[in-house]
């Protein structure tokens, strides 16, 4: 508490600061992609025969861009006050923005490849205002001053809300203890995670590329074509032997498929999660990760709304899970929740969950099932596919047969997977499970629920069923938290219990 005040006052002197000069170097790097826009102009000059003007034009473009970057840098200044950040920017139209520390949900620090070489970082302020473009950022300042700024803002927040935290998790982590390491990924774990991350998505790209550049490649070899493997063998005089053992070619093709799948899985895992560290800070869980682009994100513990445990049909057999936390502050544009544990056994995940005061149901938990009617949507789709396939086949298109084969399969899988829609009320939180191929368990504390919808329609109503949909802060509006098709009485009962919960403090 006293530390916090000390830091705050120390930083409070009204000194306007500028962005790090190395930002200009960053602007030069950013010129690369931007100069592409200039290409049409160059081409036009070339076509009209004014060759002489090309070099001066490019020179002028570079000069103007650099001057613009320099002016922007000159006119951008910020002030870290006692309880607010003030940012002034703009060359022609000036912007003056004041962000009180109270309104800053989260401070993120991001470093790209060039930024790391220059020792600077981009600081983003998450204010919870709608839309990413509304959030202010300092792009970029020195890494250590970025970290100091974040400490200042966090300390302010901790000082302000120290009283409630003492009651909430005094037993677990008294404020201002050393940061504890909760979870880290060693290269070996990354390797295992990468192996389970096997993905043939990259394969589609490589395959499409090979098709596209077939004539352009310096070598005439397609790893997916067994004939090419036979050709290689011929070169080495193995053809006679191979003719007898054609399957070798097939195995070669399959092996290269596997190799690409595993390599891409491992590569994406290494790039994203290299040196993954999750630490418990006084007020937040802090995650740093990344090989080329290092990100440093803090998830304030009090803003965690729900936990989502994701696993896979296959990795579940080995006990591997992934933990995501849904928070009021979102994690970038694409990811709407924070991945705090990318790949771990449940034993390693439990301590993280207990930090955010969420409990995982134990193995003996009695689950209640959703009605199998949830499979109706996919089954309707399957019926449509059957009809469509039948019509196509009748009209003489053989592809229609594919629909006829796939439809019963889809229907069967949907009917089987419907069994995996389950839920349980754990007293202070609801656990919702769904999915067979990619099982997902949402742990939603009652107190996070902002509103409850009880939905029924002309199909559910005659069956005496209803669907509960919960309004929860954060996350995406596409992935709602819902318990589909449960008995009406159970739904009304659960709704009453959830609404009785006090606000999550």
């Amino acid at each position: 508490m006293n530390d916090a005040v000390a830091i705050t006052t120390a930083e409070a002197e009204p000194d306007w600061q500028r962005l790090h000069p190395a930002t200009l170097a960053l602007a030069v790097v950013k010129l690369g992609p931007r100069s592409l826009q200039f290409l049409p102009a160059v081409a036009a000059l070339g076509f009209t025969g004014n060759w002489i003007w090309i070099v001066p034009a490019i020179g002028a473009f570079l000069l103007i861009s650099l001057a613009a970057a320099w002016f922007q840098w000159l006119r951008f200044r910020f002030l870290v006050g006692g309880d607010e950040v003030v940012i002034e920017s703009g060359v022609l139209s000036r912007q003056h923005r004041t962000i009180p520390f109270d309104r800053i949900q989260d401070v993120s620090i991001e470093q790209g490849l060039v930024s790391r070489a220059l020792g600077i970082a981009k600081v983003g302020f998450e204010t919870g205002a709608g839309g990413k473009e509304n959030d202010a950022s300092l792009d970029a300042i020195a890494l250590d001053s970025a970290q100091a700024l974040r400490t200042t803002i966090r300390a302010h927040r901790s000082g302000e809300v120290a009283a409630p935290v003492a009651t909430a998790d005094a037993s677990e982590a008294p404020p201002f203890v050393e940061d504890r390491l909760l979870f880290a990924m060693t290269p070996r774990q990354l390797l295992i995670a990468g192996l389970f991350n096997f993905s043939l998505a990259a394969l589609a790209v490589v395959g499409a590329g090979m098709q596209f550049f077939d004539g352009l490649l310096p070598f005439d070899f397609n790893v997916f074509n067994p004939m090419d493997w036979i050709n290689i063998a011929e070169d080495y005089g193995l053809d006679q032997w191979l003719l007898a053992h054609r399957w070798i070619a097939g195995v070669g093709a399959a092996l290269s498929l596997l190799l690409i799948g595993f390599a891409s899985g491992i590569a994406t895992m290494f790039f994203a999660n290299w040196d993954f560290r999750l630490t418990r800070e006084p007020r937040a869980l802090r995650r740093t990760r990344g090989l080329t682009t290092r990100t440093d994100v803090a998830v304030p513990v009090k803003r965690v709304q729900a936990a989502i445990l994701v696993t896979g049909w296959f990795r579940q057999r080995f006990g591997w899970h992934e933990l995501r936390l849904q928070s009021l502050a979102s994690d970038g544009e694409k990811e709407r929740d924070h991945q705090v544990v990318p790949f771990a056994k449940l034993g390693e995940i439990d301590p993280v969950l207990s930090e955010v005061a969420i409990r995982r149901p134990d193995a003996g938990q009695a689950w209640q099932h959703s009605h199998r009617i949830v499979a109706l949507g996919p089954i309707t789709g399957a019926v449509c596919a059957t009809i469509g396939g039948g019509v196509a086949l009748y009209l003489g298109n053989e592809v229609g047969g594919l629909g006829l084969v796939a439809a019963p399969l889809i229907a069967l899988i949907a009917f089987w997977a419907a069994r995996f829609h389950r839920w349980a009320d754990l007293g202070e939180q609801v656990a919702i499970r769904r999915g067979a191929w990619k099982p997902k368990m949402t742990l939603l504390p009652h107190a996070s629920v902002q509103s409850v919808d009880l939905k029924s329609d002309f199909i559910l109503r005659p069956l005496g069923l209803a669907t509960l949909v919960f309004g929860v802060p954060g996350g995406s509006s596409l992935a709602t938290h819902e318990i589909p098709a449960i008995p009406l009485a159970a739904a009304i009962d659960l709704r009453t219990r959830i609404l009785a919960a006090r606000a999550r403090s």
Partner: protein
Amino acid sequence: MTDTPAAHPTDPFDPDAINAAEGLDPVDPAYTQVLRIATALNLIPLAIGASIFDALLIRHIDGPYGLITALAWLAAVVMIATFPSRRVARWGYRIGEGQLRVARGWLFRTDTIVPFVRVQHIDVGQGPIERWFGLSHLIVHTSGTHNSTVTLPGLHADLAAAMRETIRRHIQTDFA
């Protein structure tokens, strides 16, 4: 607002039966006229468009001229005459016990409950047609991503203002 007991508890075909059975209050009957005018403003241009299409195209290709025009106007008249009252009968609300309850629809019925403490802010809005009939609509904002706004239309302007005051007294900021 008021604690009126269920007025029509028996007849399942009564328009008020759904709301009464669930202990909900109906919205103002004048909202039917608002919906009717809004529906008319949407459908009549469509019907006119269909008539023009009919006159310009179907007549020239020797199609069944007049069929589309007749169907379009028939559908528009039926929808304007009958649908609004049915839709209005299926809106219901209940305010009390520290929570606002809003239910709507029949084929796809949604029954939403928002506790007052979870309300971020409240709007009372009034469109030009609503002003004509002295009605307002109440919009409640929550911080949830799903249901970030819950709208309750068809309230008498005074009642909407009174409801806003009731909810406002309960609002407490949960998030700094």
